[in-house]
């Protein structure tokens, strides 16, 4: 392997990861970490370090667009970031002392969980939203403009403290594994707190950046983010995601989703095996 060969290879892989990620609605971390460890044989901590900065890049790009469209609930995001940042900091510190085997195992299990979550997508969210004193006091309720309905849709937010607790967990997973953990954040808002799905995914996108920044700062200072490895990945993922988001409105790739779940399961088995038999 030569520096040029590696840079071009991992750049191409990252463009693909960003493109697919944008199409099926996940970030690139889920692809980058297995690629770096299983294909290139890097230590998992390096892979996580490279992945976490690319997570910030993807989030910033997507969140900028959603925020401008007023799809993001800025107040709810800020409130829930209390939980995600604390969790992410804990996760990053924990990853520094845990043996790599545990990270492989956890990552494999998380991939399996993500696969199931993707298959169960597209349900309606809970219609009944119980009253919440917290959400009232913090004025978390809001509205968004629905393209299809062509009007402003108001919504109420519920179970704010429970949502905050779930976000600590999402942050912990993000800091530990170098992923955005949107796969936890979106259901926490959509199913538990009663936010519309579109608002949940836009708000999750914004929160992912701050969550990842909290752990990335620790990985960076610890020397776990190798500039030469991280650079082509961050550039590739952003370019791939930008192309992917252009295709997004044109097609609903249901078969692509199924294919992606199959890949997730296969990769997950590889990661778990690597955790069990190093």
């Amino acid at each position, binding site marked *: 392997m030569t520096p040029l060969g590696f840079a071009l290879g991992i750049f191409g892989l990252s463009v693909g990861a960003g493109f697919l990620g944008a199409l099926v609605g996940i970030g690139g971390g889920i692809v980058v970490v297995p690629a770096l460890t299983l294909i290139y044989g890097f230590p998992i901590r390096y892979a996580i370090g490279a992945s976490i900065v690319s997570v910030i890049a993807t989030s910033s790009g997507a969140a*900028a667009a959603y925020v401008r469209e007023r799809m993001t609930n800025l107040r709810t995001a800020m409130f829930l*970031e209390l939980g995600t940042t604390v969790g992410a900091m804990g996760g990053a510190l924990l990853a520094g002392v845990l043996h790599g085997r545990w990270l492989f195992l956890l990552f494999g299990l998380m991939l399996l969980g993500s696969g199931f979550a993707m298959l169960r997508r597209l349900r309606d969210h809970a219609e009944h939203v119980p009253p919440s004193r917290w959400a009232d006091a913090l004025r978390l309720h809001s509205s968004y403009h629905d393209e299809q309905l062509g009007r402003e849709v108001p919504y109420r937010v519920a179970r704010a403290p429970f949502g905050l607790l779930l976000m600590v967990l999402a942050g912990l997973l993000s800091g530990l594994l170098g992923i955005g953990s949107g796969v936890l954040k979106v259901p926490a808002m959509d199913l538990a707190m009663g936010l519309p799905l579109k608002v949940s995914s836009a708000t999750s996108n914004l929160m992912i950046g701050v969550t990842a920044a909290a752990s990335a700062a620790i990985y960076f*200072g610890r020397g776990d983010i190798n500039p030469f490895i991280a650079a082509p990945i961050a550039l590739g993922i952003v370019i791939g995601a930008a192309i992917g988001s252009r295709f997004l409105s044109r097609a609903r790739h249901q078969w692509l989703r199924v294919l992606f779940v199959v890949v997730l399961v296969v990769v997950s088995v590889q990661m778990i095996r690597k955790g069990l038999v190093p």
Partner: protein
Amino acid sequence: MSAADRPGARGADRPGEMEIVVSTLLRTGLAVSLATVTIGLVLLFARDPHDLLSTARFLALTARDAKFPHGVPAIAAGIARGDGEAVIAAGLGLLILTPVMRVAISLVEFARARDRAFVLITATVLGVLLLSLLLRAGGG
């Protein structure tokens, strides 16, 4: 003050001030940091084009104990030398700081709106972020 003036509150159909500020900041931060990373990558390779196809160089760059700057003083010194890895590290640092600056700017907006609860919430999040930055900033 009407409800529409509050940052992030439900209001008119167009984006409010907070939305525009946050969106512009994220976009600018991303563009500046990725441009810096690209320059660093070019510098890294342009220094010694022979390195491009050297297996030994690849192993040195990606070794488990590879040396690269990851503290502020080392990055600053590296940039002064024109070291590509230091420039990439600076770009990645800016990328990490982008969401932090988003929180800082939200704090200013909430303070201007005299939204005491959210000033407290935002200041706490900013505090956690600064803590994680300072925890290891001295290293390397």
